[in-house]
């Protein structure tokens, strides 16, 4: 624990400088086997502090935290503090940061809280996170919130599935479309033939069939019940407000594989924070939250009625409703799910460049590949999708849908400077075999990525698959190049849409070794994962 010795006095000095005593809070978490009840099904799962309702940890910026984690499971566990900047030994990834927490053991995490915002924590062992091992972190900033509000609610999403994570993974390996119950059928063929002619409909089938790809392949895993703060639609999580109050909703997506489109019908949402970092306020009607991302939005309900918080899965196979109401027991209205989107040939573009499809009849389609993303061009909210993508979201009420191009850091976290070098990260996979990799190599066969302390690395993400991948680098910030220079948004997770190329930059300011992976649980387990070693720097 050499780091602690260095950092603790530093935090104390910082605290003194600001006239605040450095607090030292002690927090206890138990990791338990729990019975999860979604109202539609019951299953055995994992919960923190014996509950399916996620634990919320409230920290203060500048505080030194001591977190004692007791493992009551019969298997090893771990907790990763998603998005927190801390010494790597405290990062909670077995095999990279530490050796995990054995059954019956209590592990004590100690680290200073050097940031503020909304984050979350979860197990990094096996499939414990999809099985329920996740919670929320809310860190109050030293000087108070940049945009003050009257109320504050954590709204944490998950995609609770009746099957265990390991069973889901096994089934996907046995048959990649195991959970796809939105496949195109004979009925769809007849409807499409009616709409666009039989020839066109057959030609379309032929094209997808030649690739052995499905346009419906947006969500790997369907058949889940989405939850907000551990409650399904019928269990109706309710956040209380008084009419006229400004309510801060801390949206967190803790799903195993599901992106959610989130809206509060009847209210505009002012996005003030993304992945824990304040952004210049942007008013939207709806936003898509990728797996592992967080967004803080402010709403101001003026009427004394029940409003709904709607989370609709990006593939439109499931939806959850929570309620904002002046009193408990009120129920917000439920809305009909919008029609299911289909991937297009444009979404397949990156794959064509990456895979060897020689001798394949593409039906004369132009497969222009790896189209680079041009910030702030095209339809609103569409800059980070390939042109013509079937995944571009639109707001339910026709209004503004948030895109990465709308995010601008409120205060730059780092001085803007040119990157010292570029590293290409190709996101690769074989859908039919359900194999996921980086640069065509799975984690178990790959060398670590080596970075040098003090450098600024530019990552070029090239998505050569037909799925979106929320890429998460531990320990250091990911600055998305949206063309805003010093005001580019600072995040911990970046979603790379199919067929697109996206650039991020990272100031390499954290020594040690870190995990870097796709945050879709089954892609991570499949091998879309790397160890990152930061060489040099203070030890």
């Amino acid at each position: 624990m050499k780091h602690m010795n260095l950092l603790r006095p530093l935090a104390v000095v910082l605290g003194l400088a600001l006239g605040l005593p450095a607090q030292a809070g002690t927090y206890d978490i138990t990791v338990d086997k729990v019975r999860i009840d979604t109202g539609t099904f019951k299953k055995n799962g994992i919960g923190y502090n014996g509950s399916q309702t996620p634990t919320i940890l409230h920290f203060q910026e500048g505080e030194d935290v001591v977190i004692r984690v007791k493992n009551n499971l019969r298997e090893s566990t771990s907790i990763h503090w998603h998005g927190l900047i801390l010494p790597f030994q405290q990062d909670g990834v077995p095999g990279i940061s530490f050796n995990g927490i054995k059954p019956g053991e209590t592990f004590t995490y100690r680290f200073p809280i050097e940031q503020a915002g909304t984050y979350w924590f979860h197990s990094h062992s096996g499939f414990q996170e999809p099985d329920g091992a996740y919670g929320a972190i809310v860190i109050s900033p030293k000087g108070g919130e940049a945009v003050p509000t009257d109320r504050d609610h954590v709204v944490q999403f998950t995609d609770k599935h009746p099957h265990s994570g390991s069973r889901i993974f096994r089934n996907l390996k046995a048959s990649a479309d195991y959970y796809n119950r939105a496949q195109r059928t004979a009925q769809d063929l007849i409807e499409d033939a009616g709409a666009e002619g039989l020839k066109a409909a057959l030609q379309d089938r032929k094209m997808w069939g030649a690739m052995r790809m499905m346009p419906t392949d947006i969500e790997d895993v369907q058949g889940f019940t989405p939850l907000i703060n551990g409650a399904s639609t019928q269990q109706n999580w309710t956040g209380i407000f008084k009419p006229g109050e400004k309510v801060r909703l801390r949206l967190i997506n803790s799903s195993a594989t599901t992106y959610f489109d989130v809206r509060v019908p009847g209210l505009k949402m002012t996005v003030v924070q993304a992945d824990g970092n304040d952004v210049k306020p942007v008013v939207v009607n709806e936003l898509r939250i990728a797996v592992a991302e967080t967004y803080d939005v402010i709403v101001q309900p003026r009427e004394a009625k029940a409003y709904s918080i709607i989370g609709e899965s990006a593939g439109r196979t499931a939806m959850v409703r929570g309620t904002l109401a002046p009193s408990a027991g009120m129920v917000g209205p439920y809305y009909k799910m919008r029609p299911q989107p289909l991937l297009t040939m444009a979404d397949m573009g990156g794959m064509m460049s990456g895979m060897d499809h020689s001798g394949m009849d593409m039906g004369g389609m132009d497969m222009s590949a790896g189209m680079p993303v041009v910030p702030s061009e095209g339809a609103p909210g569409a800059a980070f999708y390939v042109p013509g993508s079937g995944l571009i979201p639109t707001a339910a009420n026709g209004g503004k849908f948030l895109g990465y191009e709308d995010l601008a850091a409120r205060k730059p976290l780092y001085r803007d400077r040119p990157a010292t070098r570029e590293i290409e990260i190709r996101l690769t996979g074989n859908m039919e075999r359900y194999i996921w990799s980086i640069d065509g190599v799975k984690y178990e066969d790959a060398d670590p990525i080596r970075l040098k302390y003090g450098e600024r690395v530019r990552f070029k993400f090239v998505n050569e698959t037909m799925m979106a991948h929320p890429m998460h680098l531990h320990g250091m910030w990911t600055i998305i190049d949206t063309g805003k220079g010093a005001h580019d948004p600072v995040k911990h997770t970046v979603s790379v849409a199919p067929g697109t190329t996206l650039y991020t930059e990272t100031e390499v300011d954290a020594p040690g070794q870190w995990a870097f992976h796709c945050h879709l649980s089954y892609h991570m387990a499949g091998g879309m994962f790397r160890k990152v070693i930061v060489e040099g720097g203070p030890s």
Partner: protein
Amino acid sequence: MGAYSKETNHMKKLLLGTALGLPLALTFTSVAMAEVGVSPTVWGVRIDKLEYRMGDEENSFAWGFEAWTGNDELRLVWKSEGAKIEGGDFEEMDNQIRLQKPITDFFDGFIGIAASTPDGAPERYYGAFGVTGLAPQWFEVEAALYVSEYPYLGAEVEYEGLLTNRLILTPSIEASLPLADDPEREIVAGGGSVELGLRLSYDLIGRSVSPYIGVNYERAFGGTADILRDHGDELDELTGVVGINFMF
């Protein structure tokens, strides 16, 4: 009593297959899923045929399944197919243990051993070499060369037609082409046999349990058919089938 001892004999053979398969399976599973990011060893069982066949003259039970374990690089597969006449003999009993390895994005190559041990016919053992995978336009395809004194080519094609996302119509073709005479089994080189199936299934519980109804048609050709004709036997057989698919 004879039939009984034959059945126990076959049970022994099945057990032998299991005894062979399990230790091999365990060597895979011992890798377990400990480390983060390292793809765990997985397994699966797919029983795509477990049915009662109703024919003109006799009824029978038939099965077909694949049990496998392994990882992305290598799979150990036990494939079994057979049919037993109701109250009578196992007219068909085929078991294979094979190692399967990806050779292209969509196809695996495999090598293994295959045993054909029906009642009332001499046992045959083969070395199996083949490919299995997904062809363009979603056809599941398998083709193999079975090597022994009595070699033959085997091929299977199957297509899952989605009427809805749960109601699935599956046409299938299975063919074998003997490359040498096997007089004891009354098989003539080039005298192949073809089995056509059409099954309509409904996914009742996830993809785990799917009852189905359908038809199955078998026919012999060439010299093999001539022998059947000489014996006054039917060259073909059409049966109605009811059954359940299991996947777990």
